[in-house]
C-alpha cells in the first residue's frame, strides 16, 4: 500500500475561487494542497481582508506599500499553493474574462454573499450557462434563497460563533458567555463541509456526468454540531448552556493552575482508570472520591483539591507525569510553548515554501494526512495578481495583446512592482525553530 509516486487526488481539477477571509479560502487551500489548480480571483477595489491586514512590520514602511498586500501571515494560512488572478468582476471585460476561466473549471467555490454573487452575474444559473457540469459550491451566511427572512443580512466573521450558539456554550456557568471570537470555529467547520460537498460533487460527476449546485448556509451547517442539545430541548425543554471546562460525563475535568504566571494544565480524568491513576499520583490517602457519582456531585471541591496539588508544578513536567500514568493532560499552550514543542516540530506542522515577494514564508500545515498521495505546498503566496497573465493566457486562451488591453481597461491587474523583494525579519533564523529548514545564510 505504498506508492508515493501516485497522482494526487485532485490533480487535473481546476477550481475558480471567489473567497474572502476563511470559509471558502481554507477549503480552496485544502484542495490546492491535494493537487487541484486553485485560481483565486482577487480585486483591488474590494480586496480580500487578508490583503488589507498586511504584516505588522510593514505597516510603518511606506517604501513597501506595493508589497504590503502580500505580507500578511494570513495569506499562506488561507491561500498557500493557489494562483492569484486580479480581475475586477464589476467591469464587463473583467466578468467576461472570468467566464472564460470558469468555462475551463471543474469547481466554482465562493463565500461571497448570495446577493453579491447574483449582482455580479455569477449565481448558479449564470455559471451553469457557460459550464453546465460545474460543481458549484457557495457558502453564503444565510443561504441563497432570496425568499428567506435573513437573506439580505450581513454575516461578519466574529458574529458567526454567537449566532450559531457557540458563545452561549462558552464560559463558566456563573459568568456571561465568554465569547470565542478570538478564533472562528464556524468558518473552519464550514470550510470542511465545503470540502466534503465539493468532493461529493466531483464523485457525482464521475458517476453521472452531471454537475451540482451546493448551497451551504453557514448559519445552518454549524448547527449540525448541536444535535443532542436540540433533541433534549425538544423532548424536555432543557436549555443546555455553558459549564466551563467541566464534562457532563464525569469528573474531574478542568484547567488547573501551575507554578508561574498564567501557567495552566488541562486534565481529563473522567473514567475510573484515569481517576485512579491521577489520585494515586496525587498521593491521595482517603477513598472519599472512589465513587464516580460522588466525584460528579462534588466536582467543585475536587477541583479545589486538584488545584492545590497542581499549583506547585511546572505545567510541562506535570503533563508528562500525568500522561506517563495514562491520564489525558497537556499544558495550556501559548505560542511560545508551541514553538518549543518537539512533538509539533517532529511532525512538521509548520511548513516553509517559496514566496514570490518574501523569498520564503512559514505557515501552518494540513491536518489531513494521506500515506500514498500526500499533499504538496508549491507556494507560500500567492502574491496579489501574481498569475493574472499566466492564467488568462493558459486557461482562458487570451493573447498577450488581449490581456494587455484588459489590464489597460482596468478589467484586470497584474502584480504590482514584482521587483520589490523583501524578507521577513525572522527569515535568517527560521532554521532555529523549524528543524530541517536551511539557514538563510546558506541559500
Amino acid at each position, binding site marked *: 500500500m505504498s506508492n508515493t509516486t501516485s497522482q494526487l487526488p485532485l490533480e487535473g481539477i481546476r477550481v475558480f475561487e471567489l473567497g474572502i477571509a476563511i470559509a471558502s479560502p481554507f477549503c480552496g487551500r485544502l484542495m490546492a494542497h491535494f493537487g487541484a489548480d486553485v485560481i483565486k480571483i482577487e480585486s483591488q477595489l474590494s480586496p480580500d481582508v487578508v490583503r488589507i491586514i498586511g504584516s505588522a512590520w510593514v505597516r510603518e514602511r511606506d517604501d513597501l506599500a506595493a508589497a504590503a498586500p502580500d505580507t500578511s501571515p494570513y495569506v499562506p494560512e488561507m491561500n498557500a499553493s493557489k494562483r492569484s488572478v486580479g480581475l475586477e468582476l464589476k467591469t464587463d471585460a473583467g466578468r467576461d474574462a472570468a467566464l472564460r476561466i470558469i468555462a475551463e473549471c471543474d469547481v466554482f467555490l465562493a463565500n461571497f454573499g448570495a446577493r453579491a454573487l447574483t449582482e455580479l452575474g455569477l449565481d448558479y444559473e449564470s455559471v451553469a450557462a457557460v459550464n453546465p457540469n460545474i460543481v458549484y459550491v457557495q457558502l453564503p451566511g444565510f443561504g441563497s434563497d432570496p425568499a428567506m427572512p435573513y437573506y439580505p443580512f450581513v454575516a461578519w466573521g466574529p458574529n458567526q460563533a454567537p449566532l450559531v450558539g457557540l458563545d452561549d456554550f462558552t464560559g463558566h456557568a456563573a459568568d456571561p458567555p465568554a465569547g470565542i471570537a478570538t478564533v472562528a470555529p464556524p468558518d473552519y467547520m464550514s470550510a470542511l463541509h465545503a470540502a466534503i460537498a465539493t468532493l461529493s460533487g466531483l464523485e457525482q460527476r464521475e458517476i453521472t456526468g452531471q454537475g451540482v449546485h451546493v448551497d451551504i448556509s453557514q448559519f445552518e451547517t454549524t448547527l449540525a454540531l448541536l444535535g443532542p442539545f436540540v433533541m433534549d430541548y425538544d423532548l424536555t425543554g432543557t436549555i443546555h448552556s455553558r459549564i466551563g471546562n467541566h464534562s457532563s460525563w464525569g469528573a474531574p475535568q478542568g484547567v488547573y493552575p501551575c507554578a508561574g504566571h498564567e501557567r495552566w494544565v488541562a486534565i481529563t480524568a473522567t473514567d475510573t482508570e484515569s481517576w485512579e491513576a491521577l489520585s494515586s499520583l496525587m498521593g491521595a490517602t482517603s477513598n472519599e472520591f472512589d465513587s464516580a457519582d460522588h466525584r460528579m456531585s462534588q466536582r467543585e471541591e475536587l477541583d479545589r483539591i486538584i488545584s492545590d496539588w497542581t499549583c506547585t508544578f511546572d505545567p510541562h513536567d506535570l503533563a508528562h507525569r500525568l500522561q506517563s500514568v495514562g491520564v*489525558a493532560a497537556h499544558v495550556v499552550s501559548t505560542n511560545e510553548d508551541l514553538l518549543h514543542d518537539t512533538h509539533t516540530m517532529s511532525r512538521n506542522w509548520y511548513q516553509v515554501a517559496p514566496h514570490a515577494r518574501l523569498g520564503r514564508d512559514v505557515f*501552518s500545515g494540513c491536518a489531513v494526512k494521506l500515506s500514498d498521495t500526500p499533499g504538496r505546498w508549491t507556494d507560500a503566496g500567492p502574491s496579489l495578481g501574481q498569475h493574472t497573465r499566466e492564467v488568462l493566457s493558459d486557461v482562458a486562451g487570451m493573447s498577450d495583446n488581449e490581456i494587455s488591453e484588459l489590464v489597460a481597461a482596468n478589467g484586470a491587474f497584474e502584480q504590482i512592482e514584482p521587483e520589490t523583494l523583501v524578507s521577513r525579519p525572522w527569515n535568517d533564523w527560521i532554521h532555529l525553530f523549524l528543524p530541517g529548514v536551511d539557514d538563510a545564510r546558506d541559500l
Partner: protein
Amino acid sequence: MAGPYSGVRVVDTTGLAGAYATRLFAGLGAEVIRLEPPHGSPLRTLAPFAESIEPPENSLWWAYLGMGTQSVVVDPDDGDALAQILSEADVVFEDRLPEQSPITADLLPDTAIRTTIVPFGLTGPKRAWKTSNLVSWAASGVLYTTGFQDKVPVAPAGHLQLALHASAASALVGTLLALRARRTSGTGQEVEISMHEAALMFAPETGVPVFLDDRVHRERSGNRRDLGRPFGLYPCSDGFVSIIVLMPRHWSAMAEWVAETTGNETIMEEVFQDLGVRMESQDLIDTWVEELTVGRTRLELFTEGQRRGIPITPVNTVSALVDDPHLQAAQYWSKTQLPNEVEVTVPGAPFRTNSDWWNITPAPLLGQHTELHLG
C-alpha cells in the same frame, strides 16, 4: 440521484472522534456499519438521555450521531466475524494506534482505505499520549486565549466537543480524497488525523505564524476585543447580542441608531468616527451602546440593526435557535424517531443540493443489523 457515495461500504469502530464523519458519510449514501462490542458503543453511554427508554438505547448522542448507520455486534474475540465484515470494506474508521487495533492489515482488501484518528498522530514523542476535547484545545493554543482575564481559561463551547467533530470532519475529507485517488490507483491507502492538529487547524488567528509576525503575546480578552468599538457581546433584555463595528459606514449607522433611540446626540460627534478615539473612550462607547441594547430583545436588536446595515447577531441559545424565524421558514430542522417511536427535532442536512443527496435513517438498536451481515 441517491447520495454520491451509495455503494461504498464503511466500517466504523470509533467513538466520538469519528462519529460525526460516518454520520455525514451515511447521509451522503454510504453503507456505514458500526461495529459494537456486546455491551454497545461508548457513544451509547453519553448523557443526556431520553426518558422512558432503557439503556443502551437512550443516549441522545447516540440517537444523533448514530443516525444513518447499521449496528453489528462483534465479540472482540471473534476473529472470524471481524474478518467477514472487513473483507468487503471500502473504508475503515478507527480511533486506536495500529498496535492496539484488532484490525490487522491482512484482514483488509488492498482496495480498502484505512482512516485512523488518534490524539497526537501516529508519529512523534507524544504519539501515545491521551487526549479529550479539552486537552486538544489546550494543546492547540486556542484554550489559552479564550475566557475572561480574571478567570480560568475555557474551552470553546466545551459541551459540543468541537475538537472531536473537527477531527471527524477532517477524517471524512481525507477519506473522500483517498476514494478519489483510488479511482486512478486502484488501491487503498492510509488516512491519518491527529486530533491535536485538527484543533491547531482552527488556530491561525491566535497561532504561531501570526505571532511570529507581530510578537504579541495573546491574552484572554473576555467577550469584547480591542480591535474596534463596539466589538463583542452586549447585554440585552433576554441575553446578549454580538456587535462588530469596524468599518466607517457601520459606525455611522450604529451612532445614528443609538442617537435616535436614546436621545444621545454626543455620540454623533464627528470625533468618534475615528477608531482610535473610540478605542481610547471605549468604556464610554460601551455604556452608550448598552443604553440602546439593555431594554430590547435579541431578536428586536438583530432585525433592526441588520435593517440599518450593522453587523449584529443574537447570542443564540439552543431554544432561540429552535424557534428562530429564519430557520423555521427555511424548514431547516428535521425529525428523527427514537426507539419508543417518539419523534424528535434534529438538525437537518448540513447543506442543500439541487440533486437529491441527503437521506438519513434513525440510529439503529444495538445489534439490529448483526443478523443481516453475519447471519
